[in-house]
């Protein structure tokens, strides 16, 4: 394909090679900043019920988190009560003289105020740089209060967003007691972040749990998706760990396997029939419940047979242009590529940033090992200064790319205006969720149907102008 705007055109494997060799630099431009280690660590920790995440830092750090915790995302809608977002409010004098004394007092105060099951001290830039020994304070404080007190070094400069998730999951392992028994036919689901903060959407987890229940598999804990400290304490009593998203569960799964010998089911996201089947069998087979799982798969497959037939008919021979933007995100996009191929389409993934390749290296490699190696295109707009949302250049580049393919169908979100049917896979529209599992097949079929049947309806001049300005598209 000839196009001046294209920076890379090849396979996912080739892109990975270029990132690994340093030919493509995995660095985001200055206008693009993902969350820091502190935020992501906080997300995971807040997924444990009755926890006080005690931020050892100034007020700015916890406040960003509490915007989520305290607004529409908790209480009425998500059933999560108003939880504390406590901090030690470090000021200049603490920066000069140290804040350890205040932290110790803060832990005692937090216990007295909130009566939590767990307190996790999260250090941030200030306390990290001045060298406050949060781990020692946690050990000391634990003797003085009636709950576990853990500390997590989560300074924002200390790592990228991924390290916050991983270190927090690793810390959670410290809460796991040696097993007193084995819970037969029971698993943990790993990699969730579903506390007061809205990092994940529960529909996909609900679908996974529904399918597991149909097979007869029980779930001890969704770590850390609203689980209790008690459930975490018993986490080593399960027969198997599985992840709701390979990308997020993999680290904890591997660590629990390595340290505790608990097997971990390595499967990708259950998008489409084959991946769903793999996911369910990946859990059921090690538990000796393959027969039951196959029965569930057969029944569920029959129920969505018309949707599968429709997807085969609708996607066969088409080009599925899948763009990674805010939603659906990179790993979901690659899972979608696999699903599109399953239904006979040729997947082309647009704009998976080299930074994403670096940050999600284990998952990318796993997907490649599983045979997911779609055509990938990176455009110049991806590397320009500016917001993802306002990437007018990327929009124009996408439109140009779409024009060059036969029978294109765009999989992404409705914030794009390519000259082809748009399958709106945003996770912000709860009407067509989940996307995982058999119910997901039904929903995706409905979204594809909407896209194809209404492809000739006019797109919104208003929304296009809002997103990209009123200039004439090239």
């Amino acid at each position, binding site marked *: 394909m000839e196009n001046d705007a294209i920076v890379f055109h090849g396979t996912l494997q080739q892109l990975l090679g270029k990132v690994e060799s340093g030919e493509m630099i995995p660095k985001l431009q200055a206008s693009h900043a993902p969350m820091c280690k502190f935020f992501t660590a906080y997300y995971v920790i807040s997924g444990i019920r009755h926890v006080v995440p005690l931020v050892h830092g*100034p007020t700015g750090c916890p406040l960003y988190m509490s915007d989520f915790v305290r607004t529409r995302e908790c209480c009425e809608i998500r059933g999560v009560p108003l939880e*504390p977002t406590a901090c030690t409010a470090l000021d200049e004098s603490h920066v000069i003289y140290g804040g350890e004394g205040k932290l110790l007092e803060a832990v005692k105060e937090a216990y007295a105020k909130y009566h939590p099951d767990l307190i996790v001290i999260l250090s941030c830039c200030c306390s990290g740089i001045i060298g406050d020994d949060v781990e020692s304070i946690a050990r000391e404080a634990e003797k003085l209060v009636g709950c576990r007190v853990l500390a997590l070094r989560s300074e*924002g400069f200390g790592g990228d967003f991924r390290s916050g998730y991983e270190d927090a999951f690793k810390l959670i392992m410290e809460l796991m007691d040696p097993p007193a028994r084995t819970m037969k036919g029971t698993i943990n689901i790993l990699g969730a972040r579903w506390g007061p903060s809205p990092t994940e959407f529960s529909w996909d987890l609900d679908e996974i749990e529904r399918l597991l229940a149909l097979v007869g598999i029980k779930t001890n804990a969704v770590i850390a998706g609203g689980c209790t400290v008690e459930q975490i304490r018993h986490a080593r009593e399960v027969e198997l760990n599985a992840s709701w998203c390979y990308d997020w569960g993999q680290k904890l799964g591997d660590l629990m396997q390595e340290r505790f010998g608990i097997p971990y089911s390595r499967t990708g996201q259950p998008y489409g029939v084959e991946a769903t089947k793999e996911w369910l069998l990946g859990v059921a087979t090690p538990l000796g419940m393959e027969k039951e799982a196959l029965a569930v798969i057969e029944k569920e497959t029959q129920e969505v047979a018309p949707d599968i037939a429709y997807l085969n008919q609708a996607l066969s021979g088409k080009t599925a242009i899948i763009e990674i933007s805010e939603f659906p995100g990179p790993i979901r996009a690659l899972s979608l590529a696999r699903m599109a191929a399953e239904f006979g389409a040729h997947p082309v993934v647009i704009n998976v940033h080299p930074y994403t390749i670096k940050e999600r290296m284990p998952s990318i490699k796993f997907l490649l090992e599983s045979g997911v190696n779609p055509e990938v295109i990176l455009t110049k707009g991806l590397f320009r200064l500016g917001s993802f949302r*306002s990437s007018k250049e990327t929009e124009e580049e996408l439109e140009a790319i779409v024009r060059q393919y036969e029978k294109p169908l765009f999989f992404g979100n409705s914030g794009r205006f390519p000259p082809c049917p748009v399958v709106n896979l945003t996770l912000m529209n709860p009407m067509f969720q989940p996307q995982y599992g058999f119910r997901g097949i039904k929903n995706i079929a409905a979204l594809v149907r909407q896209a194809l049947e209404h492809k000739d309806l006019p797109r919104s001049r208003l929304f296009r102008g809002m997103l990209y300005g009123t200039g004439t598209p090239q």
Partner: protein
Amino acid sequence: MEQGPPSKTTGEPSREKCIDPYLRCAFNGAAQTALGISGSALLAHSPQGCEYLVNNAFASQECDYMETVTLCTKLCVDEIVHGGEEMLARTIREARDLPISVLFVISACGPEIVGDDIRAVCETLQPEVKFRLIPIQSPGFRGSQYDGIDIALDTILKSLVKKDTEKVPHSVCLIAPHANANPTWTADLAWAKRVLSRMGIQVVATLTHRTPLSEIEKAASAETSLLLSHDAGQDAVAYLEEAHGIEPVGRGIPLPVGMTNTQRWLSALGERFDKQKAVEEMIAEGERMVMATCRRKWPMARFLYRTPAAIVADATVGIPLVRFVTEEMEMTPELVALYTSHRPVRELLESELKDLKLTPKVVYGTDVFRTRMSLLEVKPRVIFGSTIERHASEGLSPVYIVEVVRMIRQFRMINREYFGYTGILNLFEAVQNEWTMGWRSKERRYGAKW
């Protein structure tokens, strides 16, 4: 490290070591102020997480992402250990082609502690770029968002305002309109500008909201300054008075929320600018409009006569609400919890309470825990606050939570002022909607047959 002004939130030292704050940090306040200058961009010299505080400030100033770019040096361990000045220089160079007049460089906790000299970097790089480089040292540990607003205003005034400009007769410089917890505070600013225009008073500069650099430069030409916040901006008012002879107006009276406050505020302006007649007309017209509208729409607030109420807010909205709730809505404030605690806030609230002969429980510099405990103790039946108080009042007897300050659940596409006469109706509307929702029953339900 430069010594900053005394913190707004620690006017009285809190003995608490573990707090659940309402207010963001100084870094956020500085970003909020800088982003109020149009044709500028902001570079956060910080780890990448701080960029989210910039995003929040961006939204608060209603910036347009097609016009305003924010950048971040995304400092990592290397820069914290070896210094991040080189990274800062590199990022400024990366931004050299941006079509802007000013690039604000705001440093966060990390680089300030390790001693990055952002001023020196900006000075060195200045000849290489076409836009002005303005460094603002406002790390989070310098205080609350209000301290950050003051730090940024101080830097902006000292770096950008031209001296010896000719005074514009009947003119005003508006200060800190963005230090206001009305989630759509820009409507309050717009109202203030409308009434000033009607009085023939020229606004020479607004510090800050969609303010062009040229406006900032001529701020010293204002005859007077008008502070639109009780939470921040006092230092800027004092500086303008001392350095440029700009006379403050409207000092010591609550902002114009409710009929009496609006009357007092407008009258003070009318008196200063010798526009009493115009002001009298505006007051008469405004009060007539409010009464006529209420006659037609029937605000349900009138049924809440002397109902015990709580006000949990910033001082900018909270203090004027005390009179509005007591006088115009005829409820009885039994709890007033304000986010800040500095002396001017205390003095103003105490004078209002004395004047109204009210003796509510008062909490200065409140946090979420203290608010919840105070609500449990006072048991108000109406709360003027935010979504936080909606959740924090769980377990109390049925209460109306009138969400007037951020965070609020209800999204507002249209900006609504609290200031002035339409502001009264906007606040009545908030009460009305809560009153209506209060009739919903979750317990007594049966399903329809069809």
